[in-house]
Protein backbone atom coordinates (compact mmCIF):
# COMPACT_ATOMS: atom_id res chain seq x y z
CA UNK A 1 0.00 0.00 0.00
CA UNK A 2 1.23 3.46 -0.85
CA UNK A 3 -0.20 6.59 0.67
CA UNK A 4 -0.49 9.71 -1.50
CA UNK A 5 2.24 11.27 0.68
CA UNK A 6 4.81 8.73 -0.48
CA UNK A 7 4.22 9.67 -4.10
CA UNK A 8 4.87 13.39 -3.58
CA UNK A 9 7.68 13.01 -1.07
CA UNK A 10 11.00 14.40 -2.39
CA UNK A 11 9.19 16.02 -5.31
CA UNK A 12 9.00 19.47 -3.73
CA UNK A 13 11.28 22.33 -4.75
CA UNK A 14 13.67 21.86 -1.86
CA UNK A 15 13.81 18.02 -1.74
CA UNK A 16 15.60 18.12 1.58
CA UNK A 17 15.87 20.27 4.65
CA UNK A 18 14.20 18.53 7.58
CA UNK A 19 17.58 17.28 8.82
CA UNK A 20 19.11 20.73 8.43
CA UNK A 21 16.25 22.32 10.36
CA UNK A 22 16.33 19.69 13.12
CA UNK A 23 20.11 19.79 13.72
CA UNK A 24 20.07 23.57 13.82
CA UNK A 25 17.54 23.33 16.69
CA UNK A 26 19.31 20.47 18.49
CA UNK A 27 22.66 22.31 18.49
CA UNK A 28 20.90 25.57 19.45
CA UNK A 29 19.30 24.01 22.54
CA UNK A 30 22.59 22.33 23.50
CA UNK A 31 24.40 25.65 23.30
CA UNK A 32 22.10 27.56 25.69
CA UNK A 33 23.57 26.02 28.88
CA UNK A 34 27.00 25.50 27.28
CA UNK A 35 27.37 29.14 26.20
CA UNK A 36 26.33 30.42 29.63
CA UNK A 37 28.81 28.01 31.25
CA UNK A 38 31.53 29.19 28.83
CA UNK A 39 30.91 32.88 29.51
CA UNK A 40 30.93 32.19 33.26
CA UNK A 41 34.16 30.19 32.93
CA UNK A 42 35.82 32.98 30.94
CA UNK A 43 34.99 35.53 33.64
CA UNK A 44 36.27 33.13 36.29
CA UNK A 45 39.52 32.79 34.29
CA UNK A 46 39.86 36.56 33.94
CA UNK A 47 39.31 37.03 37.66
CA UNK A 48 41.82 34.32 38.59
CA UNK A 49 44.54 36.00 36.53
CA UNK A 50 44.05 34.69 32.98
CA UNK A 51 47.61 33.39 32.69
CA UNK A 52 48.49 30.49 30.41
CA UNK A 53 48.86 28.26 33.48
CA UNK A 54 45.35 29.22 34.70
CA UNK A 55 43.85 28.34 31.34
CA UNK A 56 45.70 25.02 31.12
CA UNK A 57 44.73 23.95 34.65
CA UNK A 58 41.09 24.84 33.94
CA UNK A 59 40.98 23.07 30.58
CA UNK A 60 42.83 19.96 31.77
CA UNK A 61 40.03 19.09 34.18
CA UNK A 62 37.78 16.40 32.66
CA UNK A 63 34.53 18.36 33.04
CA UNK A 64 35.86 21.51 31.35
CA UNK A 65 37.61 19.54 28.57
CA UNK A 66 34.58 17.39 27.75
CA UNK A 67 32.13 20.32 27.87
CA UNK A 68 34.47 22.39 25.65
CA UNK A 69 34.65 19.56 23.08
CA UNK A 70 30.85 19.28 23.01
CA UNK A 71 30.46 23.09 22.90
CA UNK A 72 32.92 23.40 20.00
CA UNK A 73 31.23 20.57 18.13
CA UNK A 74 27.84 22.27 18.51
CA UNK A 75 29.29 25.68 17.60
CA UNK A 76 30.83 24.54 14.32
CA UNK A 77 27.87 22.36 13.34
CA UNK A 78 25.42 25.22 14.03
CA UNK A 79 27.68 27.78 12.36
CA UNK A 80 27.97 25.67 9.21
CA UNK A 81 24.18 25.20 8.97
CA UNK A 82 23.52 28.91 9.54
CA UNK A 83 26.12 30.30 7.14
CA UNK A 84 25.01 27.78 4.52
CA UNK A 85 21.51 29.30 4.52
CA UNK A 86 22.90 32.83 4.39
CA UNK A 87 24.96 31.91 1.31
CA UNK A 88 22.02 30.11 -0.33
CA UNK A 89 19.77 33.12 0.29
CA UNK A 90 22.01 35.93 -0.88
CA UNK A 91 24.46 34.51 -3.44
CA UNK A 92 22.59 34.05 -6.70
CA UNK A 93 25.49 33.42 -9.09
CA UNK A 94 25.55 29.65 -9.32
CA UNK A 95 29.29 28.96 -9.54
CA UNK A 96 30.04 31.48 -6.81
CA UNK A 97 27.36 29.99 -4.56
CA UNK A 98 28.78 26.48 -4.93
CA UNK A 99 32.34 27.74 -4.48
CA UNK A 100 31.35 29.48 -1.26
CA UNK A 101 29.44 26.46 0.05
CA UNK A 102 32.45 24.19 -0.57
CA UNK A 103 34.74 26.74 1.05
CA UNK A 104 32.39 26.86 4.03
CA UNK A 105 32.45 23.07 4.46
CA UNK A 106 36.24 22.86 4.19
CA UNK A 107 36.75 25.89 6.43
CA UNK A 108 34.39 24.54 9.08
CA UNK A 109 36.20 21.19 9.10
CA UNK A 110 39.62 22.89 9.36
CA UNK A 111 38.65 25.25 12.17
CA UNK A 112 36.72 22.63 14.13
CA UNK A 113 39.57 20.11 13.80
CA UNK A 114 42.09 22.74 14.93
CA UNK A 115 40.05 23.75 17.97
CA UNK A 116 39.15 20.19 19.00
CA UNK A 117 42.79 19.14 18.62
CA UNK A 118 43.89 22.08 20.78
CA UNK A 119 41.50 21.21 23.60
CA UNK A 120 42.60 17.55 23.56
CA UNK A 121 46.29 18.53 23.42
CA UNK A 122 45.90 20.87 26.40
CA UNK A 123 43.81 18.36 28.35
CA UNK A 124 46.36 15.56 27.87
CA UNK A 125 49.45 17.72 28.47
CA UNK A 126 48.16 19.74 31.41
Amino acid sequence: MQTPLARVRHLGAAKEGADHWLWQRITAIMMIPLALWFVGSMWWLVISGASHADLVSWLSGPVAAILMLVFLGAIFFHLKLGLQVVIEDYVHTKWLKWAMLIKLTIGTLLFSAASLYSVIAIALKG
Partner: protein
Amino acid sequence: MAQGSRPLSPHLQVYRPQLTSVLSILHRMTGVFLASGAMMMTCWLLTAAAGPEYYAWSQWFLTSWVGYALLAAWSWCLFYHMCNGVRHLFWDVGLGFSLKATYTSGVLMILAATGLMAASWGIGLAAYFAG
Protein backbone atom coordinates in the same frame (compact mmCIF):
# COMPACT_ATOMS: atom_id res chain seq x y z
CA MET B 1 17.82 35.67 -18.09
CA ALA B 2 19.27 38.84 -16.58
CA GLN B 3 19.14 37.66 -13.01
CA GLY B 4 21.38 40.37 -11.59
CA SER B 5 19.43 43.35 -12.95
CA ARG B 6 15.99 42.32 -11.76
CA PRO B 7 14.85 43.85 -8.45
CA LEU B 8 14.35 41.37 -5.63
CA SER B 9 11.51 41.42 -3.15
CA PRO B 10 11.35 42.82 -0.47
CA HIS B 11 12.25 46.18 -2.01
CA LEU B 12 14.34 47.40 0.89
CA GLN B 13 14.78 50.92 -0.52
CA VAL B 14 11.04 51.64 -0.15
CA TYR B 15 10.47 49.35 2.83
CA ARG B 16 9.68 50.89 6.21
CA PRO B 17 11.54 48.93 8.88
CA GLN B 18 9.43 47.50 11.72
CA LEU B 19 10.56 45.96 15.00
CA THR B 20 9.93 42.47 13.59
CA SER B 21 11.99 42.88 10.42
CA VAL B 22 14.85 44.68 12.19
CA LEU B 23 15.09 41.97 14.89
CA SER B 24 14.97 39.31 12.19
CA ILE B 25 17.86 40.67 10.14
CA LEU B 26 19.82 41.36 13.34
CA HIS B 27 19.51 37.65 14.15
CA ARG B 28 21.30 36.82 10.92
CA MET B 29 23.88 39.57 11.29
CA THR B 30 24.74 38.57 14.85
CA GLY B 31 24.97 34.93 13.71
CA VAL B 32 27.41 35.76 10.92
CA PHE B 33 29.46 37.96 13.24
CA LEU B 34 29.54 35.21 15.90
CA ALA B 35 31.19 32.95 13.31
CA SER B 36 34.19 35.30 13.43
CA GLY B 37 34.14 34.82 17.21
CA ALA B 38 34.39 31.05 16.68
CA MET B 39 37.45 31.66 14.48
CA MET B 40 39.00 33.78 17.22
CA MET B 41 38.20 31.01 19.70
CA THR B 42 40.10 28.55 17.49
CA CYS B 43 43.13 30.88 17.36
CA TRP B 44 42.94 31.34 21.13
CA LEU B 45 42.86 27.56 21.74
CA LEU B 46 45.60 26.86 19.17
CA THR B 47 47.97 29.38 20.75
CA ALA B 48 47.15 27.99 24.19
CA ALA B 49 48.00 24.47 23.00
CA ALA B 50 51.24 25.72 21.41
CA GLY B 51 52.56 27.10 24.70
CA PRO B 52 52.83 30.28 26.79
CA GLU B 53 55.02 32.16 24.28
CA TYR B 54 52.33 31.75 21.58
CA TYR B 55 49.46 32.28 24.02
CA ALA B 56 50.96 35.73 24.66
CA TRP B 57 49.89 36.70 21.11
CA SER B 58 46.24 35.92 21.90
CA GLN B 59 46.52 37.79 25.18
CA TRP B 60 48.14 40.76 23.47
CA PHE B 61 45.35 40.92 20.88
CA LEU B 62 42.41 40.27 23.22
CA THR B 63 43.58 42.83 25.79
CA SER B 64 44.14 45.54 23.17
CA TRP B 65 41.39 48.13 22.63
CA VAL B 66 40.36 46.34 19.44
CA GLY B 67 40.23 43.09 21.43
CA TYR B 68 38.08 44.58 24.19
CA ALA B 69 35.72 46.10 21.63
CA LEU B 70 35.43 42.75 19.83
CA LEU B 71 34.83 40.86 23.09
CA ALA B 72 32.07 43.30 24.00
CA ALA B 73 30.53 42.96 20.54
CA TRP B 74 30.80 39.15 20.54
CA SER B 75 29.22 38.87 23.97
CA TRP B 76 26.35 41.18 23.01
CA CYS B 77 25.79 39.26 19.78
CA LEU B 78 25.89 35.97 21.71
CA PHE B 79 23.22 37.10 24.18
CA TYR B 80 21.08 38.60 21.41
CA HIS B 81 21.34 35.52 19.18
CA MET B 82 20.64 33.25 22.15
CA CYS B 83 17.56 35.16 23.34
CA ASN B 84 16.14 35.59 19.86
CA GLY B 85 16.94 31.93 19.21
CA VAL B 86 14.73 30.99 22.17
CA ARG B 87 12.02 33.15 20.58
CA HIS B 88 12.43 31.11 17.40
CA LEU B 89 12.16 27.86 19.39
CA PHE B 90 8.77 29.00 20.72
CA TRP B 91 7.64 29.73 17.15
CA ASP B 92 8.92 26.29 16.12
CA VAL B 93 6.44 24.62 18.47
CA GLY B 94 3.67 26.93 17.25
CA LEU B 95 3.56 29.44 20.09
CA GLY B 96 3.44 33.24 19.88
CA PHE B 97 2.52 33.76 16.25
CA SER B 98 -0.03 36.56 16.72
CA LEU B 99 1.14 40.06 15.80
CA LYS B 100 0.74 41.25 19.38
CA ALA B 101 2.67 38.26 20.79
CA THR B 102 5.44 38.75 18.20
CA TYR B 103 5.94 42.38 19.23
CA THR B 104 5.73 41.54 22.94
CA SER B 105 8.26 38.72 22.67
CA GLY B 106 10.50 41.02 20.61
CA VAL B 107 10.56 43.66 23.36
CA LEU B 108 10.99 41.00 26.07
CA MET B 109 13.86 39.45 24.10
CA ILE B 110 15.69 42.80 23.85
CA LEU B 111 15.24 43.32 27.60
CA ALA B 112 16.51 39.79 28.34
CA ALA B 113 19.56 40.18 26.07
CA THR B 114 20.38 43.59 27.56
CA GLY B 115 19.90 42.17 31.07
CA LEU B 116 22.25 39.23 30.38
CA MET B 117 24.84 41.59 28.88
CA ALA B 118 24.63 43.94 31.88
CA ALA B 119 24.72 41.06 34.38
CA SER B 120 27.68 39.37 32.69
CA TRP B 121 29.86 42.48 32.42
CA GLY B 122 28.57 44.01 35.66
CA ILE B 123 29.23 40.96 37.84
CA GLY B 124 32.40 40.02 35.94
CA LEU B 125 34.02 43.44 36.17
CA ALA B 126 32.88 43.96 39.78
CA ALA B 127 34.43 40.62 40.78
CA TYR B 128 37.61 41.46 38.84
CA PHE B 129 38.12 44.86 40.46
CA ALA B 130 37.19 43.48 43.89
CA GLY B 131 40.23 41.23 43.42
